[in-house]
């Protein structure tokens, strides 16, 4: 994961991290806060600094419930969950199965090891 990935994550997510005013409302809202190592408001500054490595390796990637409460409540329209969503997607792409992942195939891929939250997000993304 590199600077280039930071660009990619901004692009996939459509998020402009510069809009964040560091109010912490996203982290105040997040139901998965306690289980996260990098907190929702920090996703934004990690992307801003280009530190995607840490984000990709973080527990938060798989702890975010994709409930989108932070997206709903953020007063600046930053949509932090979209960043974590994009980071997840980037990680999946790196594993090389990006071409395989189509909505029809997802049910077949269901296995116990697939984190449920990834599926929720994947469905959200592919439904668009």
């Amino acid at each position: 994961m590199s600077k280039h990935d930071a660009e990619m994550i901004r692009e996939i997510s459509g998020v402009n991290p510069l809009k964040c005013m560091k109010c912490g409302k996203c982290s105040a809202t997040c139901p998965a806060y306690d289980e996260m190592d990098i907190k929702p408001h920090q996703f934004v500054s990690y992307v801003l600094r280009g530190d995607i490595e840490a984000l990709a390796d973080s527990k938060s990637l798989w702890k975010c419930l994709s409930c989108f409460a932070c997206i709903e409540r953020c007063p600046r329209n930053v949509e932090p969950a979209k960043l974590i969503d994009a980071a997840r997607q980037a990680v999946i792409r790196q594993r090389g199965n990006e071409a395989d992942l189509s909505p029809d195939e997802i049910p077949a891929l269901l296995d116990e090891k697939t984190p449920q939250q990834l599926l929720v997000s994947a469905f959200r993304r592919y439904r668009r």
Partner: protein
Amino acid sequence: MQRIGVFVCHCGSNIAATVDVKRVVETVKKEQGVVHAEDYPYMCSEAGQALIAAAIKEKNLGGIVVCSCSPRMHEATFRKAAERAGLNPYMVEIANIREHCSWIHKDMEEATEKAVILARAAIAKVHLNSHLQPGESLVTKRALVIGGGIAGIQTALDIAEAGYEVDIVEKTPSIGGRMSQLDKTFPTLDCSACILTPKMVDAAAHEKINLYTYSEVESVSGFVGNFSVDIRKKARFVDMNKCTGCGLCQEKCPSKKAKSEFNRGLNTRSAIYTPFAQAIPNVPVIDTESCVKMKTGKCGLCEKVCQAGAIDYSQKDEIITEKYGAIVVATGFDTINLDQYGEYAYNESPDVITSLELERVMNAAGPTKGHLERLSDGKAPKEIVFIQCVGSRCDDHRGKPYCSKICCMYTAKHAMLIRDKYPDVNVTVFYIDVRTPGKNFDEFYRRAVEEYGVNYIKGQVGKVVPQPDGSLLVQGSDLLDGKQIKMRADMVVLATAIEPEAGVRKIATMLTASIDTNNFLTEAHPKLRPVESPTAGVFLSGVCQGPKDIPETVSQAGAAAVKVIGLLAKDKLLTNPCTAESDTLLCNGCSVCQNVCPYGAIGYEDKEVNDHGIRETRRVAVVNSALCQGCGACTVACPSGAMDLKGFSNRQILAEVDAICR
């Protein structure tokens, strides 16, 4: 053919760094009619103006073009300079090579070429300019102030003190505005009523001030110095001249279920009411929605008990027309509606209140007689949470993008007052930033922390959840300690964003005054003309122009008054000669121009015309030059090309286009 002089300004490096001014001078010298061209570092300076005057005299110039900044900046300056040198001021044209050229280009080659083209267009136009003469109009020496809050009251007092008549139109039954709803005021914590009531009394007692309370502006016509305004005096159903203000009617009125607007709906009032005890005028009004007599025909108790015989159920709204020289808008603000902010549970729990509601709760004349208590069960709270920036600084569909400016200070005030009176109550404030610039302001906030032990936490609240035991769960961020806080509170107070009063857009439309996307009125210049609207004769006072506290409101109110006094002190105003005119031979009386004119300046007359020997009477457009503002809407709309604007004629504009395309 005019003898034309061209003057190219460097504007220091503003223009000269991007435009090759020497080359502009050399190039325009070749233009037809140009007999003089020169450049100078600051054309607007005294020395620059002297250069222009000297050239006009020496070269006997008939028209000049100044290539400089926007005409909004210095057109008047250069016109005056020309006039002093004996040239008609309307023979001056400005080519804007700063805002329209040097400031928006980086490449010198391109910018220089464009500057030459802009100069060429102005030269082409000035060839067709004519010696226009401004007319004169008289000034009505009376001012109107719309809104009777502290802003309107102060402006009116200052104008009246200078000896001019002022009318205040206030839509509620009393003057006073929001300030009358406040308990104590930062940064000195003096009681709001104690400092406001004397001003209200002064305004009412002043021989030059006339109050129209429970009244609204219905329509406005005319122009600076000569406005004509229709005012609707809503029926009070109480005779102002007879009522003694004894209050017996309010006491006896059996209908006491209407929500008190003054107490933000936290308690009720009678159908016949004055909003608060110190109301001015101290004459009640009957709210027809809740009056039993009005709804069923029965009751009439107030009429029976009124010793003065002041009750009059047959009163009707009355419309009066008044003439004014100047109009001041002082319509103030309200707090935003919180329906979109479900996460704070404002609509769910009576113990979640806005800061303005807290002002009423803390006030001795408020719904709880000044006792700090939960509105759900009347119990004394032990734990109070304040949330800042609710709906402010929101760049989403729910709130306002701006900072409301006053809430950091009033929250510190509320927190301090509570800790002072109830030392056993814990107070926590969730903030994003604490914004307290101003004289003695930051000291005030620090006192809340250092002397009163208010717990300030950096971070926003995510949600407030009412609990079965009646308490409130507050979940927020503590960004400095890196924690998500879950705490129990008995009361939550929301520092709710403010927004301009709802009716202001209507007022702005009537006055053709500009208004921004947030409904704040726009000033003529954000720095140099902050209390004037771009519409001549319309001035701005108080929060209707932007968020501000009382000290700032009062300063601005005084500044607006000075501008009004400056205008009313004049006996006559020069009118703009650049007005529209219709050619009776071309006009076919279609009425299109009348429909587009925003100032109602166009009428129709039957005139005798001689069209190539045929004499006939035709209905043709006639422009009232006193009303015409020279906007040009009619000239564009006219299908027959009959309507033309002096100073911006169709010929002149086409000549400019030709010069640009040459």
